[in-house]
């Protein structure tokens, strides 16, 4: 089935997310849509899938124009989608999730899950997916959850399958398997639209590549193009894909973690008996796929996790029982995973966000009173230092772009006297320019003698920045390896294969 988009335009207020986009996906083709974060790829696909309505343009399937006002229309037209953030209901079973929206009933409206179960097992067997229809989705590991989404699309006869950033949550092995399955699907006649910002995967699977930048199509390419060429098209300027880094000069032990154990509020173990040491002037990058305990480990070091046993020492001082505030003020800079939920207060001004941690200390406050002038002066200083693009420091933080938001978080955390930097997925969702800025800053901190604990699901980032790499799997450090370890070896570790 072929899919053609002509002149698709979408505006959100003053922002033009999609600007007259043309796209042609041939029958039986893997078509990659390449663009950096914020380029407008997801918006485009949400339009194709009926979750958003375009302000202009048309969609045609097999040459005939179709009207897609809702996901039901898209499915009826043969378009299926696997979303970046899964559209699955965690407390439902696999079967319940799959029948939702297409329920068969018996008697007075009672659910009939039998035929769904059979279909799930059939498709599951065809692709070796190994899915139990009665399992609760929230109990499934992320890789399996993604398969449920794929199965759902296939059961409803999708002829064009859109995959939105599917490999973000997979180990290298799972990624390879997904890419293989994509090719298998293409060979059986399903077209695939593959949205990503990962150059390597694009080159490996795509038949054709369309590059989108700032809402516009800036060109098409074939997979034979080099990674540098593709990156430059994506970003709009020549991009060097290497990160410059001097050799590490590790000093004394800055962070020591002993037998750390973290559970969630239902008692399930999230982190199991982790011990390690981190030296000043070194970057330890924790690699691993989302959901293996990284977020919790990062939070536990600062004191944000409740059910923790074990000990944590910062520069010799025990901080295991410290409050979050004491941990931060003992010298930890914490960049949380979700800058919008945990990093910033959107309705507060940039100024106020910059002093969220120090608002009651001198010089920002004299006793109980906040000195507005000093706060403003400091804010200006930091806005300059961190190159935060904004009209005024009094604007609300929610008005900033993703990259600038992250800069505000960094500006706040790194302006305290700091011995340890804990950064959790610091470049997620950022444009390339901001990613470069964050990388440079992290390396600068390390070169100034600070210890850096970096958590990242992006293997490239890990390999580029790390002095040592710890691979996390099912709540444990399965191994700590040198920075030049190969991608394949890291992949095996991330999949749980012990060295």
């Amino acid at each position, binding site marked *: 089935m072929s899919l053609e988009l002509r002149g698709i335009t979408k505006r959100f207020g003053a922002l033009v997310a999609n600007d007259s986009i043309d796209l042609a996906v041939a029958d039986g083709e893997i078509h990659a849509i390449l663009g950096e974060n914020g380029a407008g790829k*997801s*918006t485009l696909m*949400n339009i194709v*899938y*009926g*979750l*958003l309505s375009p302000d202009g343009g048309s969609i045609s399937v097999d040459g005939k124009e179709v009207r897609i006002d*809702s*996901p*039901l229309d898209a*499915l009826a037209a043969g378009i299926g*989608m696997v*979303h*970046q*953030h*899964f*559209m*699955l*209901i*965690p*407390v*439902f079973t696999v079967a*319940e*999730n799959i*029948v*939702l*929206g*297409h*329920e068969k*009933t018996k008697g*007075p*409206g*009672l*659910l009939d899950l039998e035929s769904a179960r059979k279909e799930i097992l059939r498709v599951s067997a065809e692709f070796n997916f190994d899915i139990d229809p009665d399992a609760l989705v929230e109990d499934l590991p992320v890789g399996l959850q993604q398969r449920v989404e794929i199965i759902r699309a296939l059961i409803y006869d999708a002829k064009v399958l859109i995959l939105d950033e599917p490999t973000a949550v997979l180990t290298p092995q799972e990624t390879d398997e997904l890419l293989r399955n994509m090719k298998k699907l293409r060979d059986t006649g399903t077209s695939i639209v593959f949205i990503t910002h990962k150059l390597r995967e694009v080159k490996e699977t795509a038949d054709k590549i369309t590059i989108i930048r700032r809402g516009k199509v800036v060109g098409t390419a074939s997979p034979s193009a080099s990674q540098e060429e593709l990156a430059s098209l994506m970003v709009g300027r020549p991009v060097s894909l290497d990160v410059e880094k001097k050799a590490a000069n590790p000093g004394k032990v800055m962070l020591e973690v002993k*037998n750390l*154990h973290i*559970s969630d*509020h*239902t*008692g*399930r*173990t999230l982190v*199991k*008996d982790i*011990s390690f040491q981190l030296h000043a002037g070194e970057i330890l990058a924790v690699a691993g796929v989302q959901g293996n305990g990284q977020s919790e480990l990062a939070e536990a070091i600062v004191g944000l996790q409740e*059910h*923790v*046993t074990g000990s944590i020492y910062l520069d010799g001082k025990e901080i295991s029982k410290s409050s979050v505030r004491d941990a931060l003020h003992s010298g930890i800079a914490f960049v949380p995973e979700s800058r919008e939920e945990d990093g910033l207060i959107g309705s507060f001004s940039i100024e106020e966000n910059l002093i969220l941690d120090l608002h009651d200390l001198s010089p920002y406050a004299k006793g109980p009173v906040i000195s507005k002038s000093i706060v403003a002066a400091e804010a200006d200083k930091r806005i300059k230092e961190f190159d935060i693009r904004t009209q005024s420091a009094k604007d609300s933080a929610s008005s900033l772009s993703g990259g600038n938001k992250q800069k505000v978080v960094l500006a706040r955390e790194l302006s305290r006297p700091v011995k340890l930097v804990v950064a959790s997925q610091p470049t997620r969702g950022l444009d390339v320019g901001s990613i470069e800025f964050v990388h440079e800053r992290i390396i600068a901190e390390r070169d100034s003698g600070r210890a850096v604990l970096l958590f990242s699901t992006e293997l490239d980032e890990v390999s580029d920045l790390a002095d040592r790499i710890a691979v996390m799997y099912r709540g444990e450090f399965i191994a700590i390896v040198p920075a030049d370890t190969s991608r394949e070896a890291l992949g095996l570790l991330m999949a749980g294969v012990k060295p």
Partner: protein
Amino acid sequence: MSTTEVRSLSAPERRRKRGIITMASLGSIGLLLFGIFPKSGQPVTFSFVLGNEWVLAKELIINSKSGSLSFSIISLLAIAVATLQFRARKTIRTASAVFGATFLMSFLCWATAGKFVPFTGLLQGGLILSVPLIFGAMAGIISERSGVINIAIEGQLLAGAFLSGIVASLTQNNWAGLVVAPIAGALISLLLAIFAIKYGIDQVVLGFVLNVLVIGLTNFLYKKLLIPYQSTWNAGGTFPPIQIPLLSKIPVVGPIFFSQSIIVYLMYVVVAVIHIALFKSKWGLRTRSVGEHPTAAESVGIDVNKIRFRNVLIAGAVAGLGGAFFTLGALGSFSKEMTAGKGFIALAAVIFGRWSPLGAVAAALIFGFADNLQGLLTITGTPIPSEFMLMVPYVATIIAVSGFVGKVRAPAADGVAYKRGGGSH
């Protein structure tokens, strides 16, 4: 390199632990106050016969002090069993229920020393008083499972009571009153739906303001029309109890469950239907999906706001029907603010029952029984001042919500208004 695993407690376990501590405190206080301190006992007469059911035992006479003491000791044993089950990582539900029952019996023996206790009547009255709570809780569950917080249960109950009362009076027909009661509730929830879903107003605030509106309206009309022209506007009747043949003759259980008015029988049906529908039907699946993850529901083509809107209306209708209980099921006429906060206790039952219909029913029954007990004791006379007895249902609610429930997991998207296309990035 693994040392002994130190496991911290999971949430259900911490909840059980908190429950055991609460029970232990209550149990020790009970033992001292009811069993040990009183100097001597007086005979308490428990009567088990209510109407014309078959009779197993007519009465039981217990000495108050020894009765209290025995029940207290059994309740403490129940706590011990609960602690053992807790250690073995099992649920403590049965042991807690036994504790609750024996603690109450111990209290009862103490409070009614020298008096006569119509035991079956007590339980029957407890069920009756829990009727509006159960209706209100069902309304709360339907609404909240769809993702809309419904604080306006109080207003919906009151509206149902008011409209059913005046229609029954105007038409001199109780059935007419019963039929319009759901409409009144649905009208109030229509406002809730419009303002919460279409205009996205904060649902807690909105529910509260709607309650104020209904109270103001009904008070105003009560003073303007119902008092001066009582024979026209406020002379409705009540539904008499209907005895179900055979079942109502079973000793103790019969009079309690099968000798009630039509409203109570309707309640049984409503609870059964809602429980089955919520977990086994297409409507229930879509409802729960919309309350847990509306974006995911929309991504399969479900109209989130339409389902929410419809369910809020249904919830209002259910609550309105429950409101008819106050007039047509109990008093016969409407009086100012007659719901007296029952809508909020119903909400507490929803939380206590963790948003499950049967759980909420169990909670509501407990609250209803406590309420009836308080009424009985006020009549028979107890050492505790009546004002403190009146406080009992409210204090019980606080203890329930903080002692036994703690941090709850409401439907994930409860209280968050949804805009179409909310899933795009």
